[in-house]
């Protein structure tokens, strides 16, 4: 009986979605050529798809509801078993060999694959660092920044302009790009960071869009929609490098950047500053009432995120040797955000994995490429619904202390 009502509701869902998608999935008009195309097969696919998905949905929703009530029970007994993922991350015996393998593969990669592959990986690593940078702002400090791409653009344009107009070297521009990003972050952040979270999101979206429009229309400085070309690749002690060697070089540079970013984020996470960010994310009012300077703390997170975007922007410009405003679209912010969301806000490993998966999947599964943004959107919704803590949830550090040892002994 329950089964029948279950199937019935799935059927209703299927019919509803057939109705919803009918004008857009089945009919296709071209008002230019005055043709109509009726794609009846799509109707079938939608029906089947909606039926199955609604069955899965119902099951997942039930699980979610059960999970919520279970968690309440669980909280009373403190020794719950860590999941495989957590064990993998916590037990050195498990993660050390794995880490070694990953490092070895990453180092060997350029020697065993073609340049095309290396280029793909360079961009994937750029996304990893962007993800880790945004993770500081969104994941650790809880500031939803939808205009993150603006800082990436600041870095890229800083290098492009300094290099093509003033002939400055990549290595000088790398820190300048990062610092310019941070500086712009501070200037923009200063007036807006006291806004409530959702307003902040919209304002940063506005900044991101304004930046793009300015790049497009300010011919004198940014060369408008044509963009800037012939940007130099990074040099290495005056060594001449062909494209392939330069790409390999950039690949290693990006690996170093990833390690550097992870190192920094990791240190910040469990420091005075990182704790204050997290506390602000949890409860702003309680946090300021405990003596945390909100403006300053938020500004730090915002500027640091911007710093990384600026830094990577420089590398991006040097890798593509050509930039135009189209590269700094809102969509890029959205993609990076969905990586942070998928990876688990605040979790370093999660963000790295998510950034790699979301970037490499469409590259290697060409069929998937068109559906990329669709999937990104769906990922954001589904993660919020079913796993808001992300794939790898953020484990809090525990501290040891003489008193704790006593207490444990006393308890048995």
């Amino acid at each position, binding site marked *: 009986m329950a089964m029948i009502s279950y199937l019935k509701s799935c059927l209703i869902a299927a019919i509803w979605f057939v109705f919803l998608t009918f004008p857009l999935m089945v009919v*296709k008009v071209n008002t230019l050529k005055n043709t109509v195309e009726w794609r009846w097969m799509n109707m079938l696919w939608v029906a089947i798809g909606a039926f199955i998905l609604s069955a899965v949905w119902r099951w997942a929703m039930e699980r979610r509801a059960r999970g919520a009530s279970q968690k309440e029970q669980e909280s009373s007994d403190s020794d719950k078993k860590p999941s495989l993922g957590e064990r993998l991350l916590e037990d050195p015996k498990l993660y050390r060999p794995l880490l070694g393998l990953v490092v070895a593969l990453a180092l060997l990669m350029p020697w065993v694959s073609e340049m095309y592959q290396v280029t793909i990986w360079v961009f994937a690593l750029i996304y990893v660092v962007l993800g880790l940078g945004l993770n500081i702002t969104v994941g650790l400090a809880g500031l939803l920044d939808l205009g993150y791409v603006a800082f990436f653009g600041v870095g890229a344009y800083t290098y492009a302009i300094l290099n093509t107009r003033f002939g400055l070297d990549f290595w000088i521009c790398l820190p300048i790009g990062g610092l310019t990003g941070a500086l712009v972050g501070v200037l923009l952040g200063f007036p807006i960071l006291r806004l409530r979270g959702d307003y902040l999101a919209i304002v940063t979206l*506005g900044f991101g869009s304004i930046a793009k429009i300015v790049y497009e229309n300010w011919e004198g400085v940014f060369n408008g929609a044509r963009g800037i070309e012939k940007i130099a690749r990074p040099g290495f002690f005056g060594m001449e490098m062909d494209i392939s060697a330069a790409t390999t070089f950039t690949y290693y540079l990006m690996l170093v950047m990833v390690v550097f970013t992870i190192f920094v984020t990791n240190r910040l996470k469990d420091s005075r500053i990182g704790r204050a960010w997290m506390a602000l994310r949890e409860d702003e009012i309680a946090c300021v009432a405990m003596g945390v300077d909100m403006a300053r703390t938020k500004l730090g997170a915002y500027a640091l995120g911007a710093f990384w975007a600026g830094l990577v922007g420089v590398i991006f410009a040097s890798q593509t040797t050509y930039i135009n405003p189209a590269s700094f679209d809102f969509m890029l912010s959205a993609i990076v955000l969905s990586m942070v969301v998928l990876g688990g806000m605040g979790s370093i490993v999660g963000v790295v994995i998510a950034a790699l998966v979301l970037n490499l999947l469409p590259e290697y599964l060409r069929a998937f490429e068109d559906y990329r943004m669709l999937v990104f959107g769906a*990922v954001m*919704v589904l*993660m919020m619904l079913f796993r808001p803590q992300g794939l790898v949830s953020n484990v809090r550090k525990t501290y040891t202390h003489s008193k704790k040892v006593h207490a444990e002994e006393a308890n048995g």
Partner: protein
Amino acid sequence: MDYFLELFLSGLTRGSIYALIALGYTMVYGIIQLINFAHGEIYMIGAFVALVVSGVLTIYGFSGVSILILAALIAIIYSAAYGYTLEKIAYRPLRGAPRLSPLISAIGMSLFLQNYVLLAQTADFLPFPELVPEFEFMEPIAHIMGSAELIILITSAITMIGLTLLIKYTRIGKAMRATQQDMVMARLTGINVDRVISVTFIIGSVLAAIAGVLVGSYIGQINYFIGFMAGVKAFTAAVLGGIGNIPGAALGGLVLGLAEAMAAGYISSAYEDVFAFGVLVLILILRPSGLLGKAVKQKV
């Protein structure tokens, strides 16, 4: 003088469109404090459905105003259905979640719907069939104001009056106001809050669909991405008027439309969108409660 009048009317037209969309943002925000990021997409879908319907009918040989009305009706039904489904899938399960969760879900939905239309239809701009008749009595002032503009102004005025009456005098309108004031109390007094929220999304979507159809036939072409900019501007209008405040959204829309038209006409149209964003940023920094909103202190 004529130039000013022309700008003024085009600003008013633009503004009433912003106002129609802004109402959806403001009503939803008023009740569940969520920026419904996907609202612009509901507007886009309304416009697209109208395009599909009128395109099909034109190709099968129908003509005239009847198409416009039929297309508008179907677009309204579909936008309402999408709005309702959107709320049910992406927002309702997140009641009581941390504030950023439904917002991220909304951003996800916005991306999803954009790309759904992109994949199901096309990335190109499609011309909207010419549906609005040229009124003869408009001939003498045609250089200042077209028939489409007249229709937009009249339709949005009627819609907004209708909305005001609905909220003031009907049962559901009263329930909406009660829920906006205090959701917990409303629930205690027997109001079905979930239903009120659904209805709010449906009404907002209907208004967005009307805006979509009007814009489609006014601008003459649409694509899957029109919801993004329209959404941001309408949200700006809602904030400008004081978010959560219904007359505020209408006022904010008109003010923003006028200001934009003047800035574009007398300064430069390249920075038109910067202007809207600039207004948004300034308002949020200087007067977050907007023109008509009251400043509320968060209870601690």
